[in-house]
């Protein structure tokens, strides 16, 4: 391709953990490959809706500090979702951007994504399609198993992000949305709940846990009152799912997230409900978490409500 025909971003700074994500890959747990996909599915969905892209189009996911990108090509729109501070640098000057709003980029313009605010993940995309390779039906990068585009690695400086298609009939759109926070993380009791002493069961729900720095796309390690196991600190290794809370031999909870190992041998005290997963992953290291017990039936209803809320937000985009 002649360079003047190309539309692409050059990465001036990669950010801490910038990857391609979509909705992830299914039906591969049995060979050891997790779902992956965008951590915060609501913000992923909102972004593709804002940009009028296909619902499963690839986006850039970043954590904490995002990338600094320089654009080369014909006019394009971009949008960012999540609670994110970023600047748009053009020949006319520098402006602060707002999430959930679309902005025009011309050849040579830059987007500098400083940070996510009081949250972990943010998303960036354009009114068009990034040139990505698909692995088992998904372009999600799983850096742990080195699966996905860019040889399964996170983005690095000087890499170029190709755009293979621009939607020319696009109209600028926006959404007034401040994000969604939550007081307690709701869980369903786990299959090994009775492995733990009664006082530890009480502590698990009454006291709060601190999210440690040992948290990433694979899992979230918590610190707090020790959870005492009175049966066996290990179980026969078995399958895990997103949101499962295992208690390690040391008595600390660890929550499995989207890139988690598919099999584990620690007892499961609880599982985070699907309705609260997007908000769980946005909690930053150092903040506190409190768990609340709900029934399976309530969890199913809460998920439906959460989906309705998301669809409602999508309908408010204009």
């Amino acid at each position, binding site marked *: 391709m002649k360079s003047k025909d190309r539309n692409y971003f050059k990465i001036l700074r990669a950010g801490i953990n910038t990857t391609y994500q979509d909705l992830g890959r*299914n*039906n*591969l*747990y*049995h*060979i*050891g*490959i997790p*779902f992956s996909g965008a951590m915060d599915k609501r913000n992923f969905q909102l972004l593709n809706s804002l940009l009028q892209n296909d619902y499963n189009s690839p986006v850039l996911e970043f954590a904490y500090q995002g990338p600094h990108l320089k654009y080369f090509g014909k006019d394009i729109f971009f949008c960012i979702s999540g609670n994110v501070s970023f600047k748009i640098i053009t020949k006319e000057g520098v402006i602060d951007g707002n999430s959930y709003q679309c902005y025009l980029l011309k050849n040579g313009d830059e987007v500098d994504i400083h940070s996510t605010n009081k949250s972990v993940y943010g998303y960036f995309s354009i009114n068009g399609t990034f040139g990505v390779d698909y*692995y*088992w039906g998904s372009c999600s990068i799983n850096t*742990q*198993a*080195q*699966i996905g585009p860019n040889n*399964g690695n996170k983005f690095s400086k000087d890499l170029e992000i190709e755009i293979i298609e621009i939607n020319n009939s696009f109209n600028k759109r926006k959404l007034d949305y401040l994000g969604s926070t939550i007081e307690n993380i709701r869980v*369903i009791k*786990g*299959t090994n709940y009775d492995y733990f002493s009664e006082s530890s069961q009480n502590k698990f729900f009454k006291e709060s846990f601190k999210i440690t720095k040992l948290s990433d796309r694979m899992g979230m390690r918590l610190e707090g009152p020790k959870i005492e196991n009175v049966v066996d600190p290990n179980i*026969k*290794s*078995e*399958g*895990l*799912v997103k*949101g*499962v809370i295992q208690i390690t031999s040391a008595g600390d909870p660890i929550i499995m997230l989207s890139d988690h*190992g*598919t*099999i*584990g041998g620690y007892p*499961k005290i609880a*599982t*985070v*409900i*699907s309705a609260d997963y997007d908000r769980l992953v946005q909690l930053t290291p150092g903040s506190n978490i409190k768990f609340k017990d709900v029934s*399976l039936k309530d*969890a*199913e209803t809460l*998920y439906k409500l959460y*989906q309705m809320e998301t669809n409602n937000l999508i309908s408010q985009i204009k």
Partner: protein
Amino acid sequence: MIKNILNLGDAALYCDFGSDVNQEINSNVIKYFYHIKKLNLKGITNLTPSYNKLIISYDLNIHSFLSLKKKIENIEIKENNKLETKLIEIPVCCDNNFALDIKRVENKLKLKSEIILEKFFSKNYFCYMTGFVAGMPFLGDLNQEMRLKRLETPRVKVPKGSVGITEQFCNIYTFETPGGWNILGNTPQNIFDTSNQSNPNLVNPGDTIKFYRITLDQYNEIKR
């Protein structure tokens, strides 16, 4: 054959086949796994067979726990359904650079390294499941006198290709990952092939593995 179905969170069935770990129970898990996989049911997002459990993840927009549970309970599987499995031979080099824990294993089992390795290579192993990381096979069973616990402190990085033992099981590290198994050697063979998307796993549940010992020269030859 499924003893009991519980929920694991709000989007997965937890099918219990019994509390023991043996090949009979595990073969039942594997039969169910392949059977359900073939049915290609809409809204099933993952199936995870393990020693004695099968976890079925589903899309909450399509199924609820009770309705899917009923569907799974109504599945009939013929007991004499034969599994299609294969025998796979895998070379392992036990050079000192690879046998990271041979000294520890000698001490714990109170056996000389040559005896340990002789016993290890004298048996075929059954693949109970694959996972944790992509393609990692969980194999068994080791002879009674070969069983020991994991390392007290897991390694932060176990080299790719490492062959380890713990309790009645052995495994192969398909990627460099943290891990606590006792490492006896290393295979130059690629166990998980990302570029082969239709069949990335060399070893699948139900298969039988025969390890055979190779020299460092042979190892380097295969690696080349």
